[in-house]
């Protein structure tokens, strides 16, 4: 069966315009001038000689012009010719078929009354219905790379098919086909075939991890052959902190791509927190191009948000980019000076005070108040979010109890050590509040134990990345300085942990923990193993001192600003390093579903692995110190971590792969592209291959135009 159809049938009516050259030729000839001429005999003689040729030229010209009009109209109408060449003939042997279903995001594009994916699934259902009990079939999900067993139970196959849903991820077509080939490898006595139901999007056609040598005949059913690309998408969301005149703000920038063939004008972008619109703006995106849009969020909120592209386009699933923000708040910090001095430079808390509230230079969200040990009795700890004990020695039991209660109820405690601190006394005084027990003071020497050969130790420069402690995340910005430049000559050594329960924030280059975090009740405790002044190190004269202690105090007070702009793509396996005290984790997906995360402990380090990440959006992670206390539900505010997953931008690009390119990527085997509706039995309504002849017609049009020009010049 073959048939002609048009992508734009109304334009094809323009072919009736062929009448125009004919009408012009016969009824509106060019106005000739009257001309009296003397040598008429020669004019007539010459005309008689060439009259036949001229007449032929004239009709050729007329035909060329008519044809040009018709071809132009037909080319613009995009003629499609369907050829009935793809029915699969059932032979003598039973059939072994694997149906590969592309469940990538691009298959959610709408066509007719449903998505491409729905059409593909319906096609597979039809195919399964054609199989007999002697045939064998299996189904492969080209995104998840899941497969069924080869079987002939239609109900099982239908159930497996129904369980496959479209995803937000790209397909891995090469691997899916390789998997199909392996499923058929033992069935060489049957007529083997692989049928791939896909939109032929370039992104999904990755080469298989390993080349398949025994590739059965492959039929690609192109579900999107008549669809024009019409997709807008968002990508590369980025958040930057902005210091405005009176407040801090977050600048959210995002790229808008137009993978369609028409310009997109005044596309509305909206930054949302929950149901609230935090900012919005318009952007123009040229066809095939991209544009960047930035929006400012003042009064930075905390929580999960999204930038949404408010447009009716091909793939709605990639019209959002998710992020999470945590706005800071004012922190009242109490600093207890354990070694007050008359000279302010000698005071233990002088440098800390300057670091936490550098009023002259920048705005700080920390308001420190300094007291002496003697004044502690009159302090109401409930007025503060963080307490800093700077080189504080012995404290009264009531004070210690108050501080412990303060921390237990959610306050933050920073202990900086020094000459007033005695390890045994401290261990006894604070007990399990200390992240680790103190072992004693160490003053490293280079060789012989003389004062002149003190060895200066340095901090290990923290590595940036997903596992970075929040206190150190600020140092990802190299302009904040290099922590490794500070020199340490004296510090406390802490107890090695058999069962890790604390988190080392900073280490010296020899691995000695220098800043350690522990949990106590609802609160956090950080021990800085050296002095906060110049007595044991020179950190306080380095630019890194200020951000380190600002961040530490804000972290302890749970006031650290945080952002996550979702550089991980939906569908990826996410692993998070966690403290050694973590016994498990629960994850809340964007659809509110709560599921456990896998805890992995390797070489003393622990991490959680989250595999069920199909949905883009914000995932909340609740870390469990005790597996038995796992709650059935938890609120967002209880979450210890957030993970933001976004759609892989590559999936938004609707560029397609040609048959030749597919063949090149697969390496071998017979590959044919067909339209939806292909049948097993060629006698049933046959499927068709559709070919567009628009380009051919345009070339013919150009050829005719050249011919017309030549004839016009001659005539």
């Amino acid at each position, binding site marked *: 069966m073959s048939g002609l159809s048009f992508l734009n049938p109304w334009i094809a009516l323009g072919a009736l315009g062929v009448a125009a050259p004919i009408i012009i030729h016969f009824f509106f000839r060019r106005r*000739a*001038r009257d*001309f009296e*001429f*003397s*040598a008429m005999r020669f004019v007539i003689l010459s005309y008689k000689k060439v009259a036949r040729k001229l007449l032929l030229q004239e009709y050729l010209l007329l035909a060329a012009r008519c044809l040009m009009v018709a071809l132009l109209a037909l080319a613009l109408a995009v003629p499609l010719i369907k050829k009935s060449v793809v029915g699969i003939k059932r032979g003598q042997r039973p059939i072994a078929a694997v149906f590969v279903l592309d469940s990538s995001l691009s298959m959610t594009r709408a066509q007719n009354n449903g998505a491409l994916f729905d059409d593909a699934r319906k096609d597979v259902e039809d195919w399964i219905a054609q199989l007999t009990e002697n045939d064998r079939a299996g189904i492969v999900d080209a995104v998840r790379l899941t497969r069924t067993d080869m079987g002939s139970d239609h109900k099982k196959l239908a159930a497996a098919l129904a369980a496959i849903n479209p995803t937000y991820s790209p397909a891995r077509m090469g691997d899916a086909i390789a998997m199909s080939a392996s499923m058929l490898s033992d069935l060489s006595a049957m007529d083997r075939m692989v049928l791939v139901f896909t939109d032929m999007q370039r992104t999904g056609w990755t080469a298989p991890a390993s080349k398949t040598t025994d590739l059965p005949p492959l039929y690609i059913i192109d579900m999107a052959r008549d669809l024009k690309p019409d997709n807008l998408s968002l990508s590369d969301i980025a958040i930057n902190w902005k210091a405005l005149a009176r407040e801090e703000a977050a600048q959210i920038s995002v790229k808008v791509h137009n993978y369609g063939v028409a310009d997109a004008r005044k596309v509305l972008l909206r930054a949302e927190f929950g149901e609230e619109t935090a900012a919005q703006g318009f952007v123009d995106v040229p066809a095939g191009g991209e544009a960047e849009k930035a929006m400012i969020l003042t009064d930075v909120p905390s929580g999960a948000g999204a930038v949404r592209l408010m447009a009716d386009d091909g793939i709605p699933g990639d019209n959002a980019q998710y992020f999470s923000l945590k706005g800071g708040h004012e922190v009242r910090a109490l600093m207890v000076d354990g070694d007050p001095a008359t000279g302010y430079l000698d005071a233990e808390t002088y440098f800390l005070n300057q670091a936490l509230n550098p009023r002259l230079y920048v705005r700080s969200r920390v308001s420190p108040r300094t007291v002496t040990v003697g004044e502690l009795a009159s302090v109401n700890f409930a007025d503060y979010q963080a307490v800093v004990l700077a080189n504080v020695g012995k404290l009264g039991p009531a004070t210690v109890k108050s501080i412990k209660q303060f921390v237990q109820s959610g306050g933050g405690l920073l202990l900086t050590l020094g000459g007033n601190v005695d390890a045994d006394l401290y261990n006894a005084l604070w007990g399990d509040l200390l992240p680790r027990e103190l072992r004693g003071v160490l003053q490293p020497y280079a060789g012989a134990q003389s004062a002149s050969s003190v060895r200066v130790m340095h901090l290990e420069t923290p590595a940036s990345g997903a596992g970075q402690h929040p206190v150190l995340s600020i140092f990802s910005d190299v302009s904040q300085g290099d922590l490794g430049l500070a020199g340490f000559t004296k510090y406390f050594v802490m107890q090695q942990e058999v069962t890790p329960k604390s988190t080392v924030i900073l280490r010296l280059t020899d691995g000695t923990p220098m800043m350690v975090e522990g949990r106590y009740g609802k609160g956090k405790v950080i021990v800085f193993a050296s002095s906060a002044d110049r007595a044991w190190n020179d950190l306080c004269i380095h630019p890194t001192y200020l951000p380190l202690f600002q961040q530490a105090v804000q972290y302890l007070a749970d006031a650290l600003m945080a952002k996550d702009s979702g550089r991980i793509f939906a569908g990826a396996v996410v692993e998070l390093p966690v403290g050694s005290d973590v016994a498990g984790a629960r994850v809340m997906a964007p659809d509110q579903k709560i599921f456990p995360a896998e805890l992995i402990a390797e070489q003393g380090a622990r991490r959680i692995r989250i595999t069920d990440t199909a949905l883009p959006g914000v995932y909340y992670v609740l870390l469990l110190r005790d597996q038995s206390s796992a709650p059935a539900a938890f609120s967002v505010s209880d979450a210890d971590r957030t993970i933001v997953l976004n759609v892989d931008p590559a999936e938004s690009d609707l560029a397609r792969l040609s048959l030749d390119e597919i063949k090149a990527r697969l390496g071998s085997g017979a590959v044919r592209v067909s339209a939806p509706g292909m049948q097993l039995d060629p006698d049933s309504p046959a499927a068709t291959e559709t070919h567009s002849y628009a380009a051919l017609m345009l070339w013919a049009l150009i050829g005719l135009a050249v011919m017309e020009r030549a004839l016009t010049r001659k005539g």
Partner: protein
Amino acid sequence: MSANSFVDPELLRRIQALELQAREVAEGVLLGIHHAPDRGRSIEFAEHKEYSPGDDLRRIDWKVYAKSDRLYIKEYEDDTNITSLVLLDGSASMSYQGQRAREAGSPTKLDYARTIAAALSYLLLTQSDSVGLGIMGRGIHGFLPPRARQAHFHEIVARLAELDVEMGTDIGRALADAASLVKGRALIIIISDLLDDPGPMLKALSLLRHRRHEPVIFHVLDPDEIEFPFERLSLFKDMEGPARLLVEPRSIRDEYRRHFGRFLAGVKDECAGHGIDYRLALTTEPPALLLTSWLAYRAAASGSRNRR
């Protein structure tokens, strides 16, 4: 058009500077610059010739015999006048004036022909030759018999001035008529575009030659008739008949040029074959230049014949 407009004083002055020397000997008796080849009847000594038996004894120069003891006879040159007939083509095709000629300020073919005719008449009359005039149409009309008086010039000019074109032409018949109108040998100056059936026309020319006339043809053409430079779609109408043809000039240009070139070559060859003096006269070419070059050519040709 006034009669004086055909008589360009400058043209005439330049033409007077040259002598019109006929190629062939014209019979006549008027003394002038036209030398007759028949020696012996004139009083003007030409040269000595060695005596040979049969020569007239009265012409023996005895003085030379006395000095050289050899017999020579005297030869004398005798001046004669010439009878000329100017035949002007009065057909409608002669009124054609091409676009380029119009833009260059050149005349129609007819005006050009009138100028040449008048100038030649004046020249011939100035040399005491007799000049007649005939207008060629379907025959000869407006005929003025050859006369040698100066007043005749005014009649010729007046006839030329009042000349109007007529539809249709038969140059062959006109030439045949002209041959019968002139007695004796004559210089017959034909000024025409020759756009007629070439067969009878060439036949009539050969008849003129046969009757010992000396035909001279000034073939007057507009450059557009040769080059056919037209571009726009045109309805060509025949100036001498009902024929009409709608045609894209570009489509037949090459063919036209081929045919016209063949026609020109045929006329030229035919004239050369019959010893007829042929000059192509383009209306864009100054008439003075045309006549000057023609007269120079004739003088040179005549000189070489005399030397022989």
